[in-house]
């Protein structure tokens, strides 16, 4: 049932709609979650076998399940299915209430189905996840400023590195796709909402439930296993591991729901004339990533379900003494883990292409090649996972084939650079805030890409694998490239969300600090890696003293940049310079609707006759 079936958008008030949802919000969700968590804990202790070695794990797993169901119930996620079950499906008034009509700011705290509200909620969730990950990064760097664990002890440190990795990865997965595939993609394709608005709200609040579980991990014994959750060391961790595994299960539900929704919206709900070759390129980035996510994340779910089985029911999927192997976990993890890199990267690349075209007042260069490159990259990415396992000893004979598929990735990646530079080449490049972050993206992605070539080569990987070189490489890709893409997207679409520009001066200060910080941090980290410093070391030899000190200073600089960005986002929301509905004079549909975007987006669905990159014939709105 989707609100898009409602033909007219003129409704006044929702006095009769909503039912139970009128009294439900994030707070009731929290209360419901805590009550059910406690209830499940109580039941688990009552029926569980206290002498069993799994007792604490079973209790913890029950608590997480209780939390999820209680949260869903409390926030109202299950109202719709329940009413459908008892034969009293939601009325139009109910749906309008759920869409947040006339609810003001309170709709951001509710199970709201409007895709624009969900988009804003995703912006906040992204900032929460990346912020928490960033704070842990500062703690890690503070501990590494000198050798010897002077800040925290090695156990706390080990938990921090795992949590930093996981929070950042989850934050990066939603950083571009979460806010913008929700906020702008439906408008871009000319739809009144996502295909499944209730699932859209479900994906967001399920992510919140997962994030809560993930953060609780730190309070229940931590996650001292490393972020790749390599078995069998996971069997030595306490109940934090159960919380973590359930957080991943819940997170996978969230991304699956979100991915299906994005795909269905673009496939089924494009307006008249919006052919696949007229889609704004960001839409392509989003749907390829969504499709890839649907393939990739179930492996993660499976990996963590097997983990939970081992811990709760004493199976031996990952326990060598019981006939299992950690290689199973490693394979499952990386079959998710490598496609996931492109689930993260492709929306950012799509956004960068979009911004580059609009800002240089030129069409995306060779649109079909660009889309082809993204599809090729997504396709290749499912065939390369074992390059993370070159040195594990698993299947050495597959080294050559996996090296081949991995190095082929250079070709579609090269296409991105060609498209990006040829798009901006001889354009009239408008030097506004989003443009700066696009240039930052190019600079960092070259370094991230080139250093990847070394790691794809087995003789070199035998030296670099497991060292800080790898850490620096993928931070250039994530922090240097995807984060820059995400900020570019934020600066680009912020006026559409708020009607105001993101503060240009603060944005530039933030760019300067972050850009310099990234180079200082990760170039010195490359040097640590070249010198031979392994990853995940809480303390290190004096050989690596200077490079680590420099890395920490760079890390603090990035944090300063991010703090300024946060200040810019907060202060510009109410006090920024007014932007009007189409500040960048672009042609894609999201700029054709008023700001703030009305509920259901369009009075009359538009008819599309060409792609949005014809800037010359643009009619001024």
């Amino acid at each position, binding site marked *: 049932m989707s609100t898009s079936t409602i033909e007219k958008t003129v409704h006044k008030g929702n006095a009769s709609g909503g039912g139970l949802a009128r009294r439900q919000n994030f707070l009731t969700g929290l209360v419901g979650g805590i009550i059910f968590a406690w209830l499940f804990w109580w039941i688990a202790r009552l029926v569980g076998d206290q002498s069993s070695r799994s007792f604490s794990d079973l209790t913890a797993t029950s608590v997480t399940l209780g939390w999820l169901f209680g949260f869903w119930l409390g926030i109202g996620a299950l109202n719709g299915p329940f009413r459908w079950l008892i034969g009293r499906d939601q009325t139009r008034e109910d749906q309008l209430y759920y869409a947040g009509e006339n609810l003001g700011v309170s709709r951001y705290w509710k199970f709201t189905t409007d895709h624009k509200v969900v988009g804003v909620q995703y912006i906040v969730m992204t900032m929460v996840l990346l912020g928490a990950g960033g704070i842990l990064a500062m703690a890690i760097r503070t501990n590494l400023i000198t050798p010897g664990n002077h800040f925290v002890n090695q*156990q706390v440190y080990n938990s921090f590195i795992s949590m930093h990795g996981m929070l950042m990865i989850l934050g990066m997965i939603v950083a571009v796709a979460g806010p913008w595939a929700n906020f702008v993609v439906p408008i871009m394709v000319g739809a009144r909402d996502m295909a499944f608005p209730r699932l859209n709200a479900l994906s967001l609040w399920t992510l919140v439930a997962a994030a809560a579980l993930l953060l609780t991990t730190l309070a229940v014994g931590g996650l001292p296993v490393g972020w790749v959750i*390599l078995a069998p060391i996971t069997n030595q961790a306490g109940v934090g591991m159960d919380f973590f595994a359930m957080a991943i299960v819940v997170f996978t539900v969230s991304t699956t729901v979100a991915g299906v929704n994005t795909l269905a919206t673009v496939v089924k709900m494009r307006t008249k004339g919006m052919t696949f070759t007229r889609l704004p390129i960001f839409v392509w980035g989003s749907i390829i990533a969504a499709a890839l996510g649907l393939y990739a994340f179930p492996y993660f779910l499976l990996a963590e379900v097997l983990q939970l089985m081992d811990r709760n029911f004493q199976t031996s999927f990952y326990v060598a003494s019981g006939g299992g192997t950690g290689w199973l976990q490693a394979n499952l993890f990386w079959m998710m883990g490598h496609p996931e890199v492109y689930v993260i990267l492709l929306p950012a690349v799509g956004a960068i292409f979009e911004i580059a075209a609009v800002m240089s007042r030129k069409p995306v260069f060779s649109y079909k090649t660009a889309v082809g490159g993204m599809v090729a990259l997504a396709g290749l990415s499912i065939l390369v996972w074992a390059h993370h396992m070159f040195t594990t000893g698993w299947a050495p004979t597959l080294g050559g084939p996996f090296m081949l598929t991995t190095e082929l990735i250079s070709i579609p990646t090269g296409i991105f650079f060609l498209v990006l530079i*040829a798009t901006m080449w001889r354009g009239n*490049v408008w030097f506004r805030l989003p443009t700066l972050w696009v240039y930052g993206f190019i600079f960092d992605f070259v370094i991230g890409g080139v250093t990847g*070539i070394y790691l794809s080569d087995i*003789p070199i990987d035998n030296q670099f694998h*497991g060292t800080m070189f790898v850490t620096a490489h993928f931070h250039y890709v994530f922090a240097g490239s995807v984060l820059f893409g995400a900020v570019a997207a934020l600066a680009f679409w912020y006026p559409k969300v708020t009607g105001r520009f993101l503060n240009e001066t603060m944005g530039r200060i933030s760019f300067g600090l972050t850009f310099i910080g990234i180079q200082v941090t990760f170039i010195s980290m490359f040097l640590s890696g070249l010198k*031979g410093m392994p990853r995940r070391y809480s303390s*290190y030899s004096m050989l690596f003293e200077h490079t680590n000190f420099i890395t920490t200073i760079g890390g603090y600089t990035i944090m300063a940049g991010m703090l300024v960005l946060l200040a810019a986002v907060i202060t510009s929301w109410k006090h920024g310079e007014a932007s009007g509905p189409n500040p960048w004079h672009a042609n894609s549909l999201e700029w054709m609707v008023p700001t703030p975007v009305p509920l259901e987006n369009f009075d009359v669905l538009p008819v599309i006759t060409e792609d949005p*990159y014809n800037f010359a014939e643009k009619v001024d709105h």
Partner: protein
Amino acid sequence: MSQSENKKSLVGFYWTWGILTVVGVVIGLWAPGRFMPASMSGNMHLSILTIQVFTVCAAPVAAGIYAATLHNIRHDRWRGEGVPPAAEAVRGNTTLVSAWLIASSVLTVFLLVWGLGALAVDNSSTGKNPLVVDVTGQQWLWTFHYAGTDVNTTQLVLPENREVQFRITSDDVTHGFWIAQMAVQVDANAGVFTEIHTTPDKLGTFDIRCTQFCGLNHSSMVTTGEVVSPQNFQKWLTSQPATI
């Protein structure tokens, strides 16, 4: 020069490209020797050589992208007031795309051929009278047993110019066995043996570091070893007390 003429002149671009390429090549040739641990095996020579070759291949590409970006920032930046006008709409260029694809494919194929060749060399074994060492990783310690002897040690001693075959396993969780000066690395997994081999070709000490996260004291799972002459190795081996 008007702005449009200025836009067409690519002299600056070529210069920047050339200079950046040279800088990249120089850094690529110099940095491995400057920063990486001193090589003590053929595998390490090969790794360093491959890094240098790959850098030489990648430098022109990276430099080209940087030079183009700099040229773009310098010449295509809109300096007027307000919204820039539309630029000439170039929606594609089959020649450029084909040339780019062919060039990047040729480079990739070269890297692949080199890489597969290097892999074959890296894996090749002389097969002549190798010294077999059983390596056991455990939380948070390496122990070494010389096959065919009663000798166990926690500090590895290896003879120069003789192939060493490591058979690696773990008593508990997964560890990563890596000799930082010899570019050989493989995980120690409970219940199975993984194998690597290398031939130390230089006297001196080397570092063994655990590269797979293994818990509380992972960062202390480091030790050193020494490459000695074959005569000294025999002397050392016979002087070791039988253990266990």
